[in-house]
């Protein structure tokens, strides 16, 4: 453990901020190079169509055009898909440019390269495509039905994967238990909407075969290894740089056609090639999230104590698999028990192809989908047994534990203490007073009714133990790396394998190093996001950065200190056992004034004038950490909404997030992650959904129709991260906080909306709870009662 915590746990202000605040940051569109040309994608206005002919002649003759290229002109392999989750999974072949068919609106048939951005866009419009339109399917049940039009004829079906968790316990309870709750929940597709669209710049030296890709990505390391395969550029000659990245939320946890094309074109043309995504392109060409349908069965006793939990899911894969597509529902498959303790568990899902943008990881990735249906069903159970939803959760919470403990999902949870989190959330939301106010409004028959929603959750972070990933058929490992270099003048460089894009790693990681090595955080420079500088990395997603990459820092520091101890003992002329590490120095036991700091030792190691025998010069070390278990944050959220029963409009009056993410490194950053996560979940609950028309066209095709909420719609949030139950998985005790808000908030809000209307007979409003959906739910309930 870190011996002296001067900075861990403190709200250290971010080192990242000054250049971001002053416009000096360098996002991908700020990169430019001499001789650079622009790439534009040619995406014909079809959703599902057989290509008859692509005519590029008019486009090629347009001003400034360098060339127009189709798949046959470029020697690119299929785009990477790295998670074939079952042995018999059917994998659609996915090329950067499609040849035979257009299968979704983002499918491109050609690229234009031109001298300027405008010329490339103008010429892309001039490429003409003759195609035969096929029926478009955007609905998963329709796509899964027998006889449905096939998205990929060669696969013979649209249902390309069926993953069965296998379950646990006596499955008979779903027939025999005293109380059975069956529910169906639909969660529409979401569009991630990092405010910075994607983009990339590829350049290199043809004669050397060396290339660099600068890309707005979360995963430079994974992009490097996979695109080496796609482009044929030798892995050691391909460098990938993630510059300042303007948000990701999973949408940049992928390897995209445009990245492969830009590299392929730089290789073919010998000039730097740049592509910047328009927002409209982003809505069809960048992955979507969610898009699932669940049938839920809960078995319980008459008091609402859970006996069994069963979930059967249909998941929309989109038209192809992107990097991880079918792995996303599977990730959720481990958290359907929530923080509860049933004896029986069942989860399975079928992945279905449709004529839509591929789905993949969107903030939470499988766990929000799971938590939503669990927590909605818990409220349904409470209604069925006539109990308060808080009480039903309370009697089902798993008892506290501080060592890894097997849960019914088949994995061991690192630590947890759930009930105090629920108590805290109820206290902060002023639960009893809100219930009283609710009763008053109901008695008065107010137009605006009050609803209270609660969620208790557990989630799985810290992806991931490599052996488990292997067992789950994921193609890569889940480790991460850290290299620490102590410079002679007292500065420390940390090279991390994580690749932040807003999470503040430069600050939090510096805090960890500062405490570990007894230096000031200002003396620590964190380097990241460049495969040449930090080759050992697995990048940033799934709330893994701290609980894997951060822990790697800890082990690198252990190695640095082991060597430093040897040098210090030599210089102080004592044995290593006679040294204590305290107050940021190695001190002689009994004579604490005889001491060496890490900077002092770093200088000795650098000039190397008098190192002990067998000790190499330079104080530096690298560690690669492979976690032994996942980490499991947990929490309780509560909110109060006011629903206008005439218009269906919902206002959130109060939102409380109580989260236990283990040891907190920087409470300011943790709070920021919770705020952002809750806001995204509130957006999911009340505003956002991808809507398609009958012809398969995306109706919510811009930010004017896809409703990302503003400061006017997002409520003030009350957060509490004071409970820090240390993870038993790693020596820092950290768990992760990047996704908790997004996981817990959608059911919290929807439960509150339903709760506001439950006295009218409403049991579901759908997601998002748009005014029209709420209005319809009220009308239908009234109709049913009448």
């Amino acid at each position, binding site marked *: 453990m870190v011996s002296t915590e001067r900075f861990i746990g403190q709200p250290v202000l971010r080192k990242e*901020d000054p250049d971001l*605040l*002053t416009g000096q940051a360098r996002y991908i569109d*700020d990169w430019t190079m001499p001789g650079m040309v622009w790439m534009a994608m040619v995406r014909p206005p079809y959703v599902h169509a057989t290509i008859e002919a692509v005519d590029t002649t008019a486009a090629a003759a347009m001003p400034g055009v360098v060339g127009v290229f189709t798949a046959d002109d470029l020697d690119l392999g299929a785009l990477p898909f790295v998670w074939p989750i079952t042995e018999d999974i059917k994998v659609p072949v996915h090329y950067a440019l499609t040849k035979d068919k257009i299968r979704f609106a983002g499918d491109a048939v050609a690229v234009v390269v031109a001298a300027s951005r*405008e010329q490339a866009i103008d010429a892309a419009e001039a490429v003409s495509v003759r195609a035969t339109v096929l029926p478009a399917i955007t609905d998963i049940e329709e796509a899964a039905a027998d006889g449905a039009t096939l998205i990929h004829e060669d696969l013979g079906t649209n249902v390309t994967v069926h993953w069965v968790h296998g379950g646990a316990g006596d499955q008979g309870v779903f027939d025999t238990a005293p109380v059975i709750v069956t529910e169906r929940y639909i969660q529409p597709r979401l569009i991630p909407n990092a405010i*910075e669209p994607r983009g990339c710049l590829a350049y290199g030296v043809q004669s050397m075969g060396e290339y660099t890709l600068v890309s707005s990505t979360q995963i430079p390391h994974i992009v490097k290894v996979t695109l080496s395969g796609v482009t044929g550029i030798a892995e050691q000659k391909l460098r990938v740089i993630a510059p300042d990245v303007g948000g990701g939320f999973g949408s940049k946890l992928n390897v995209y056609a445009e990245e492969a094309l830009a590299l392929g074109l730089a290789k073919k043309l010998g000039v730097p090639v740049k592509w910047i995504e328009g927002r409209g392109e982003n809505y069809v060409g960048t992955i979507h999230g969610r898009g699932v349908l669940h049938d839920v069965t809960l078995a319980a006793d008459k008091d609402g104590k859970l006996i069994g939990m069963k979930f059967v899911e249909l998941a929309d894969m989109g038209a192809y698999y992107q990097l991880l597509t079918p792995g996303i529902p599977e990730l959720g498959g481990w958290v359907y028990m929530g923080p509860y303790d049933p004896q029986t568990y069942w989860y399975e899902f079928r992945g279905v192809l449709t004529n839509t943008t591929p789905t993949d990881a969107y903030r939470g990735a499988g766990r929000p989908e799971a938590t939503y249906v669990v927590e909605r069903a818990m409220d349904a159970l409470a209604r069925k047994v006539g109990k308060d939803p808080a009480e039903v959760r309370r009697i089902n919470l798993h008892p506290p534990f501080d060592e890894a403990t097997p849960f019914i999902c088949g994995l061991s949870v690192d630590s947890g203490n759930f009930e105090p989190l629920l108590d805290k959330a109820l206290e902060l939301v002023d639960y009893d007073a809100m219930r009283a106010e609710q009763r008053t409004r109901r008695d008065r028959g107010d137009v605006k009714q009050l609803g209270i929603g609660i969620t208790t959750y557990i989630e799985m972070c810290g992806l991931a133990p490599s052996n488990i990933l292997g067992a789950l058929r994921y193609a890569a490992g889940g480790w991460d790396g850290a290299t620490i270099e102590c410079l002679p003048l007292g500065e420390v460089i940390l090279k991390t394998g994580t690749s932040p894009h807003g999470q503040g790693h430069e600050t939090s990681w510096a805090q960890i190093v500062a405490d570990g090595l007894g230096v000031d955080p200002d003396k620590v420079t964190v380097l990241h996001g460049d495969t040449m500088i930090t080759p050992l990395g697995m990048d940033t997603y799934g709330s893994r950065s701290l609980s894997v990459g951060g822990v790697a820092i800890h082990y690198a520091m252990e190695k640095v200190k082991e060597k430093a101890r040897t040098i210090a003992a030599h210089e102080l002329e004592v044995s290593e056992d006679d040294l204590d590490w305290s107050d940021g120095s190695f001190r002689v036991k009994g004579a604490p004034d005889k001491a060496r700091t890490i900077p002092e030792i770093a200088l000795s190691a650098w000039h190397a004038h008098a190192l002990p025998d067998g000790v190499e010069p330079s104080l530096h070390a690298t560690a690669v950490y492979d976690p032994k278990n996942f980490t499991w944050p947990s929490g309780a959220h509560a909110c109060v909404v006011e629903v206008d029963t005439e218009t269906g409009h919902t206002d959130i009056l109060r939102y409380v997030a109580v989260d236990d993410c283990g040891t907190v490194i920087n409470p300011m950053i943790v709070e920021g992650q919770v705020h952002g996560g809750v806001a995204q979940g509130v957006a999911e609950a009340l505003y956002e959904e991808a809507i398609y028309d009958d012809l398969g066209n995306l109706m919510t095709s811009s930010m004017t129709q896809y409703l990302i909420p503003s400061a*006017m719609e*997002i409520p003030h949030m009350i957060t509490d991260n004071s409970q820090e139950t240390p993870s038993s998985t790693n020596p820092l005790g950290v768990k992760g906080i990047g996704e908790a808000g997004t996981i817990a908030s959608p059911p919290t809000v929807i439960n509150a909306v339903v709760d506001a209307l439950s006295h009218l007979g409403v049991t579901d409003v759908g997601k998002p709870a748009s005014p029209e959906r709420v209005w319809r739910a009220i009308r239908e309930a009234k109709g049913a009662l009448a």
Partner: protein
Amino acid sequence: MTHVSLTVNGAHHQADVEPRTLLVYFLREQLGLTGTNVGCDTSSCGSCTVHLDGESVKSCTLLAVQADGREVTTIEAVATDGELSPLQESFHRHHGLQCGYCTPGMIMAASSFLKENPSPTEEEVREALEGNLCRCTGYQNIVESILDAAGQTSGARA
């Protein structure tokens, strides 16, 4: 091509531009002022907010020719001699930014607003940001940053 002559961050510039050149691309690509970002096609996100004659506008929904003869201020001119402005400093202190992409637009929208309303309430600050989208922060610390810069305090709206 159309000739434009305008003042940007106090410096006078003349250039010939295609009429369709959006102000934001003129600033970014012809003047090299890349602090102003582009996040959408539809004047929705506000990342491109700059000041035109001292008032906030979305530079992606403005032709460069419309700024002819006028004064444009971008995020690059907000700090002076490396010193953050009080508003920027407040964003730093209150963790009012994460990925930073929307931040220049937020700062420019907020500084224009504070000129009109130097002592706003939380509700007024939120309303002033209705045209600026942020995907990272949930807005709470942005609102806090602006209120504190204005010497105001926040509380729950409820």
